[in-house]
């Protein structure tokens, strides 16, 4: 049985796919109520449908850093054999933090200060060094997938990033989906700025086109959909 796993930040979580609700839009309850809608409208869900993966697990979480995603995955590893990992790399400036025993992202003000302090300590290209850090995390996952006989693909939310990573890290080139977002129409945004289900459908379609036009070895199992699940647990399991 085939399994698709997606990793990423809010853009892969599906944040922005809101349905009408009687709850206050600024409340935590409203956000929680919308989570199943995020899962339904997210990019991974569209790819599951298009290529026919029986199972789909979405580890992505709003605000997550790349390291968060790596560690979150290993904190809740899956046992399926025939698995494809699709990792949306988010902004490399985001930092990882454990806060009160849960997996969290460093608040942005910390990240900004660390960035400035790195510059102060003579680092002339902090952005590139942050990309190198991300490449090391990707390498861990690539190796894990290799020994498990899984497939591993990476794509980038920010346009232009895939070519930078491909140039800087040739070993990752075979895993990188050459993908740039196409412009969104006005009706493809949610009220808070994330894409809505239409926007995510457009991103999914562009990704699928890139996978197909570059002849990537991305499975198309054409199986019946059985599981669609968000791995949303912040708690550390050991």
């Amino acid at each position: 049985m085939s399994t698709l796993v997606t990793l990423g930040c809010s853009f892969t979580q599906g944040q922005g796919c809101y349905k009408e609700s009687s709850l206050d839009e600024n409340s935590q309850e409203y956000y929680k109520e919308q989570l199943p809608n995020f899962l339904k409208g997210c990019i991974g869900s569209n790819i599951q449908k298009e290529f026919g993966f029986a199972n789909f697990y979405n580890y992505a979480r709003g605000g997550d850093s790349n390291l968060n995603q790596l560690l979150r995955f290993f904190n809740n590893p899956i046992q399926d054999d025939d698995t494809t990992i699709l990792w949306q790399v988010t902004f490399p400036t985001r930092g990882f933090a454990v806060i009160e025993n849960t997996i969290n992202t460093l608040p942005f003000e910390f990240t900004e200060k660390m960035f400035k302090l790195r510059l102060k300590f003579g680092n002339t290209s902090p952005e590139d060094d942050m990309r190198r850090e991300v490449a090391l995390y990707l390498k861990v996952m690539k190796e894990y997938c290799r020994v498990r006989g899984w497939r591993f693909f990476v794509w980038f939310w920010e346009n232009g990033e895939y070519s930078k990573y491909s140039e800087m890290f040739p070993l990752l080139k075979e895993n990188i989906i050459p993908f740039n977002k196409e412009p969104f129409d006005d009706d493809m945004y949610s009220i808070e700025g994330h894409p809505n289900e239409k926007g995510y459908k457009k991103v999914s379609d562009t990704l699928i086109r890139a996978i197909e036009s570059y002849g990537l070895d991305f499975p198309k199992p054409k199986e019946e959909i059985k599981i669609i699940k968000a791995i949303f647990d912040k708690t550390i399991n050991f």
Partner: protein
Amino acid sequence: MSTLVTMGCSFSQGDGCYDFSLGDAENDFINFREDNMDNFLHKCIGSNIQERFGYEKFINYAYAGSSNESQFLLFFNQLPQDENVTIIWQQTFYHRYFQLAKKGVMDAGLHYEWVVRAMQEKMEKLNLTDWDVEQDTRFHTLLRIQSLYEYCKIRNWKLLIWTWMGHEYEHLIKLFPKLKSIIIPYSNPFDREMGELPNEWVSKIPNDPHPNEIGYKIISDGLCDSIVKNNLDCPIPNEKPINKIKINPTFITT
């Protein structure tokens, strides 16, 4: 063929095992230390464990000043090519952080302003105590251990960990009882000022906070005894030790 891998900081690298005939320690310490690297490798904790348990090959990833995350990433960046691998990972101080700067690794610790400020700010903004922050750093480390553990499970490799900090075993077991199967119960007598220890156990360099070869042998014996006594899942292949290899801390990102 069996392979032992050790990971850790200077204490696993073997810092402190000096052959004073190799140079001028007083006037040219940097080169003197560099020239002693092979001596470190042959007298370090991993080398002693290799000899006692009989691993054919020994690979040491540890380097001075390393953080736990750097060890994790270095390992995946330069993976051993062998099949029958046992990893012994010495956990170092939690306040050390991995960072890349100018294309190279420059581990950050309390000597970095951003590390100190980030800890202070975390306490202030989130209303946490230093104990809370310390606990969080344990979880940080745990997540890396867990990732390596999952990888080893798939490869059918063995993973054991131990901590340099004397009382950490109790803290970690209390927080994560499942660690018990991979953590070596060992209370390190060297987790203190070296001046409090017998002179013959510690480095002869003034103010050097490291044991010497006698000290490392005491630690190695303690670790091996604990592994055997607690019946931990650690192979004792009894093969002839042949190779000792030091991994340079170069991160290959191409």
